[in-house]
């Protein structure tokens, strides 16, 4: 029983990160109809930003070897700023890789390639600057919080709970914003019918920027949280999450916000149920599950049937 609770909480924590990640994809997808392949790189950036801001030192390889900021911020502030930093980079990606194509009226699918290019550039830039070694965020970062808590007899790492809580708050805030606010509804309008949105006086370029900004913020926060929870396994560590996030997105239904959350939690739980001896098969379980669901519901769990969209 204790074991089950532990499993559940771990699964939910991992799933919540997947959900955060997938939500970032979803936001951009819903306004532009394309996947931003630089999203994984923004996640990675968020992790490195967090590491630097809490006072971590850069390793011996890379252009800024040995760099350490003269201050060390508390973790929560570092995480927040990392989100803001990733959001800023997301806006640059939008400016460079998306907007020029839109201005020329090119096929939106071309943005897949340009965003992939932007992602590759970002990842390589990170490697150039800080090298390829892995970094881990020290245990003491959380200050006076204990490393693990005992809940109903189950031992759970504080980090996991923190992850779950922060992800939960962000998901909730985003849902409330999209469904309950004027600007959230304007974003939905751009997503449903860009021309009509324009005729209502909604500046679709601005809404697209907002979507990218929030998307980058979520990716940066997710990266910082995962960096804290497991470690930053080098500049490429966002790629695995990027793929998993895509899986989550498709599982939940493209463009569906609740779908992204549900998909994330399901994949996280499915992975958590893989016994430790077989942990190498985690991805197989996650993607196998995705495969099965798509056989039965090609539009994803909460997605609209494709015919309606066309």
């Amino acid at each position, binding site marked *: 029983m204790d074991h089950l609770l532990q499993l559940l909480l771990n699964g939910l924590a991992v799933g919540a990160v997947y959900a955060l990640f997938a939500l970032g994809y979803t936001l951009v997808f819903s306004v532009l109809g394309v996947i931003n392949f630089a999203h994984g790189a923004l996640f990675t950036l968020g992790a490195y930003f967090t590491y630097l801001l809490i006072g971590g030192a850069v390793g011996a390889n890379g252009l800024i070897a040995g760099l350490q900021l003269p201050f060390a911020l508390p973790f929560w502030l570092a995480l927040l700023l990392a989100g803001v930093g990733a959001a800023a980079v997301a806006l640059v990606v939008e400016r460079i890789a998306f907007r020029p194509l839109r201005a020329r009226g090119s096929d939106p699918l071309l943005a897949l390639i340009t965003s992939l290019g932007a992602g590759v550039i970002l990842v390589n830039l990170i490697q150039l600057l800080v090298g390829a070694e892995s970094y881990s965020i020290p245990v003491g970062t959380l200050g006076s919080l204990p490393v693990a808590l005992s809940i109903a007899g189950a031992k759970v790492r504080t980090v996991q709970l923190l992850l779950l809580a922060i992800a939960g708050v962000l998901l909730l805030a985003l849902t409330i914003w999209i469904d309950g606010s004027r600007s959230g509804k304007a974003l939905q*309008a751009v997503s449903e019918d860009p*021309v*009509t949105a324009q005729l209502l006086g*909604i500046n679709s370029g601005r809404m697209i920027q907002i979507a990218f900004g929030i998307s980058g913020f979520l990716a940066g926060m997710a990266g910082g949280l995962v960096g804290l929870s497991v470690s930053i396994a080098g500049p490429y560590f966002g790629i695995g999450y990027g793929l998993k996030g895509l899986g989550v997105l498709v599982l939940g239904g493209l463009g569906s916000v609740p779908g992204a959350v549900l998909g994330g939690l399901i994949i996280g739980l499915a992975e958590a149920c893989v016994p430790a001896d077989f942990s190498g098969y985690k991805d197989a379980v996650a993607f196998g599950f995705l495969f099965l669901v798509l056989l039965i519901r090609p539009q994803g769990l909460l997605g609209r049937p494709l015919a309606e969209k066309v």
Partner: protein
Amino acid sequence: MSAPLLELRQLVVRYGSITALHGINITVQAGELVALLGANGAGKSTTLRAISALIPAAAGDVLWHGGSIARLNTERTVKLGISHCPEGRRVLARQSVADNLALGAWLRRDRAGIAADLERCYGLFPRLAERRSQLAGSLSGGEQQMLAIARSLMAKPTLLMLDEPSLGLAPKLVAEVMAALAQLHRDGLTILLVEQNAQAALAIADRGYVLEAGAISTSGNAAELLANPSLRAAYLGEAEGAKPN
């Protein structure tokens, strides 16, 4: 005489190598209801899209109170007071009736004015009031058209442009929509009405223009156009020379 509210001067619009409008001239005075008639593909929608800056003018000019607005973006034209109710209604199917109307007032910040206009819209189309919390996609075609018009009104326009509001509606609903437009016109709103249903449009219009293959072929006041034999033949479904009854 002061400048007209809207004036298209030698307006040319091209889609790639195809010229959709060959230098048309149209004026709309404040308070008028002007019908823009013509067959499919004559360039009616293109004209509205050019005024709304959804497509650029290749040559010529669009004047608003005498000043050029041909280089503005769509958001700016809405701010100026031009509200464009597009062809095919294009309501936001996944949002409620009330949310659609709220987004119609996107650029406005005067809460009291917005609330008053909302009540005015519900008064004009009582069926929308009954269905205010329903998803727009679940409305019938006629209700969606009413919603589209009401949404355009929520911008508090100086000029309301409608693109084929009668399209696909049963005759009774066409009459209902036209009666609402006539009411708005009587209340002083300036309207530019694009229609294939010339009879219905001219019945409420002050003046009309007929577009043929991207050029104005005929124009005049509504009564003249209704009596014009070649127009009757082309758009009112009568053989040329047939006696009007």
